[in-house]
């Protein structure tokens, strides 16, 4: 992936950044960006030229709340077949993880897409799909529900949208962020407009970037230039995939099926209009409505984040995984304490897999 030719270009970008004599703090909000940064050591390279890149709430599994995981667990323990994306099944919660529930005899299935879950429903069981993800996966849930006919199929929607979280982060102001690297694939859906609004309101420059090492370095370079020149525009480094208008068809599907709600994110308070719940017209597929009687008990309780786990701060860019006392000791991918060590988009798992394992912290 990182060819020699690329390495030469990368060196030139880093050289240019160095000449700019930067001292800036920027954030990205994408697990795959974090993966690229750490896998290729770009975070260290950038730090050495005065660019501090923080990771934000870019891991859908990580920002899912303990209460949502408990909802899924409750449904599984009440005899529903729970279909879920792989890493979600391993996230520990107060009463265990979905994988543990499976070991107890519950019917938990790991699926690759919502279509797999619908296929399971075709065999007759009551199937609940746990809908996780940002604008990249929410359209698939919407499109599938628009043509679903199965009465024994429903979705527990934990879908969320990125721009309200960006706004919340900027408003919280815990870190003075001078620019944002925007997630490439979320942007293929939402286009440039939502970022332009943020730029206008908060005077913050942003670059939409792809996932190759050079995409990210180029994205950082374009961002650094804007910061240096005092511009607060939105640039699209990933124009080979992201169109300015995004994907209107996918947005239409989302609008058809979902309504926007205020929702809590792990590590954040309730973020206004950041959640996607299944709307009235598709209410028969809304697991929260369909199984209200089962979920009542969950909804009347509070579920805390695991004690001592610093995922909340990792997700707000305030803490590096290695600063968590559990990192690599009490918390490892084989026995995770928090979701950031479970998901392959989680900051702690990425750090552990590329650097921790090899020594130092292990």
């Amino acid at each position, binding site marked *: *992936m990182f060819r020699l030719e690329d390495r030469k*270009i990368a060196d*030139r*970008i880093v050289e*240019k950044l160095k000449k700019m004599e930067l001292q800036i703090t920027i954030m990205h909000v*994408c*697990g*795959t960006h974090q*993966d*690229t940064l750490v896998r290729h050591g770009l975070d260290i390279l950038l730090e050495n030229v005065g660019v501090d890149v923080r990771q934000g709430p870019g891991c859908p599994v990580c920002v899912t709340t303990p209460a949502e995981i408990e909802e899924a667990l409750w449904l599984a323990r009440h005899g529903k077949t729970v279909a879920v*994306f792989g890493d979600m099944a391993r996230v520990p919660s107060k009463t265990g993880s979905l994988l543990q529930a499976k070991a107890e005899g519950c019917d938990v299935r790991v699926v*690759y*897409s*919502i*279509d*797999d879950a619908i296929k399971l429903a075709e065999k007759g069981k009551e199937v609940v799909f746990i809908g996780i*993800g940002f604008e*990249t*996966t929410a*359209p*698939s849930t919407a*499109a*599938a529900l628009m043509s679903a006919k199965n009465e024994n199929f429903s979705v527990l929607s934990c879908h969320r949208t990125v721009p309200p979280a960006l706004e919340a982060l900027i408003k919280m102001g815990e870190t003075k962020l001078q620019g944002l690297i925007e*997630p*490439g*694939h979320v942007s*293929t*859906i939402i286009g440039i407009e939502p970022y332009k609004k943020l730029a206008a309101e908060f005077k913050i420059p942003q670059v939409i970037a*792809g*996932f*190759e090492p*050079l995409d990210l370095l*180029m994205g950082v*370079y374009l961002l650094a230039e804007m910061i240096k020149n005092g511009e607060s525009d939105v640039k699209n*480094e990933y*124009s*080979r*995939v*992201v*169109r300015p208008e995004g*994907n209107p*068809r*996918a947005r239409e*599907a989302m609008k058809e099926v979902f309504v926007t709600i205020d929702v809590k994110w792990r590590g954040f308070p309730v973020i206004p209009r950041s959640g996607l719940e299944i709307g009235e017209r598709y209410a028969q597929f809304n697991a929260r409505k369909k199984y209200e009687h089962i979920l009542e008990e969950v909804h009347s309780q509070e579920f805390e984040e695991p004690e001592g786990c610093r995922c909340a701060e990792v997700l707000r860019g305030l803490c590096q995984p290695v600063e968590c006392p559990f990192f690599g000791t009490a918390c490892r991918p084989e026995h995770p304490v928090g979701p950031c060590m479970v998901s*392959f*988009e989680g900051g702690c798992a990425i750090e552990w897999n590329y650097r921790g394992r090899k020594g130092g912290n292990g």
Partner: protein
Amino acid sequence: MCLAVPAKILEIHGRKAKVDFGGVYREVDISLVNARAGDYVIVHAGYAIEVLDRATAEETLKLWEEILSQ
């Protein structure tokens, strides 16, 4: 996880298409995009969400070179 590698559409059957992820074949749903056989698509959770624009991909490379030669 966002797969940076696009998949090539081999055959289309209604809203489904057989795609090639560099040697790994899968069936994906293409109802959210306007795609034809031969196109490269970005796939998330079994659904194509965008078609790669190859002309722009080449432009990007040119742009990089321009910026770097400044």
